[in-house]
């Protein structure tokens, strides 16, 4: 899976309340989550997520288990999330939903073109040398490869 997008840098310890605030959770309308993503961090950010690679600091997605956080990013058109580390529930949620995520120490600036190559295990920003992505377990590769856990389960009748 090779993906490309423009970098949006985010600080460390972005919690899931920050990705999608609790006040927007009580709906089944997924477009609400996409439209309100990161509202408390930067209200203009949601409008710039389509085609973006989020390049975050460590511990992205900490806090609440709310899967709406990963859904919001996928629905908003985020191409991939790259961070040195992820909180584990968010990490699982992202893989289960087929939202590509990569554990890597990516050095980049806002707006840099970023290429994420999950097969080769490399991510590269602009002209900088590529950096390695921590390998996904075979289980996670299978889920991500199927397009998510629902698709994987539907395939096993």
């Amino acid at each position, binding site marked *: 899976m090779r993906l490309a997008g423009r970098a949006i840098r985010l600080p460390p310890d972005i919690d899931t309340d*920050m990705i999608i605030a609790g006040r927007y959770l009580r709906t089944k309308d997924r477009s609400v989550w996409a439209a309100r993503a990161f509202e408390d961090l930067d209200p203009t950010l949601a409008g710039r997520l389509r085609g973006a690679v989020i390049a975050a600091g460590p511990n992205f997605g900490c*806090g*609440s288990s709310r*899967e709406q956080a990963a859904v919001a990013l996928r629905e908003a058109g985020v191409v991939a999330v790259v961070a040195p*580390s992820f909180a584990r529930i968010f990490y699982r949620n992202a893989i*289960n939903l087929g939202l590509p995520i990569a554990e890597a120490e990516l050095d980049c600036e806002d707006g840099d073109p970023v290429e994420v190559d999950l097969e080769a295990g490399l991510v590269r920003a602009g002209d900088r040398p590529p950096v390695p992505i921590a390998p996904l377990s075979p*289980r996670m590769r299978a889920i991500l490869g199927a397009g998510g*856990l629902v698709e994987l389960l*539907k395939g096993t009748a």
Partner: protein
Amino acid sequence: MPTLAERILGAPAGECVDRAIDVAYAHDGTGVLALQTFRTIGKPLARPGRMRLLFDHIVPANNSETATLQAELRRFAHESGVPLCDVGEGICHQVMGEGGVRPGEVVIGADSHTCTLGAFGAFATGVGATDMAAIWATGETWLRVPETTKISLSGELGGGAEAKDLALAYVSRLGMDGATYRALEFRGEGAATLSMAGRLTCSNLAIEAGAKTGLFYADRTTCEYLAGFGVEASPQTVEDADYADEHDIDLGAVEPLVAVPHRVDSARPVDRVAGTAIDQVFVGTCTNGRLEDLERFAAAIKGRRVRVRTVVIPASRRVLAGAIRSGALEAIVEAGCTVGPPGCGPCLGMHLGVLGEGEVCLSTANRNFRNRMGVGGEVYLASVGTAAASSLAGEIAPPEGAA
């Protein structure tokens, strides 16, 4: 020798295992999305008897949209045979901890604070809605066996410090991601001195350091507590094991702490923030809404009058009933506090005590993230004793017994 996590999951750290679930539960917040996903999978419910639905996040419903979502989930429970703890029964982790979980079990909850139940020596961890939907469809899940951070406890709490202060202390020592992908194991002679309520408080904050679960070995205290609910259990043998990381905490040296906005790992001695103006005190949640907590709070304020808006919310119906019987509730109400129905209350910023712009709350909960309890509000996290002293003072104040 294996860690407790390795022993329960039956494989060494780093391996992935498929495990049948002993108990799996979701609440009104995560259940809606889980149900939607479960219906997309299109398979029958695998083991309805092992599943639970509990309404706690917005109870009773705050508007017709929430009510409609809850009604759909309620209908699903009735049609599918999944036992439902409806509005008023209490917070999922508390209700499950009232005899619903045994040592050695694998417990999965669609909520990050499922780690609370690790206090029973069960591998209890939180997942998202899709994982829960998959568990409904298959009765099992896969887990990567975590490495373990050992936290050796010695001595005994004193000087006004509570298990909550211990929890804030270890989260601050490890940092918000200090235990990511790991289990925590609380052990040592100090662990034995903690009550079941104190252990649950301690395990509850494991996720705030990124951990999958916070484990205590089941001992006599655990078994006696469970026997009170008619549940038979045996102590777990404590053995040496290989740990990824080790920390020692002398409970006697733990002092009353406050985590300041907007990080849980920002704990500092309460003296350093004493005098901070507050608009509200909140006592409750899966962290500190148990009977022991309400009784401690009541004892501290009995016969006096709170000087700041104070919201007290029992963690379950059983806690509420206990607080009525013991007289704690009377003391709380007569002191001028507002009592809410069992549930999560304002912790997640939805109802029953949401903060206004610029308002400050001293809360016994587990998260003080920006805007968590209301846009523009600030949250300080502390123990029940500190909450009581702060309610009486109308500003952040050290608990009774503090040096």
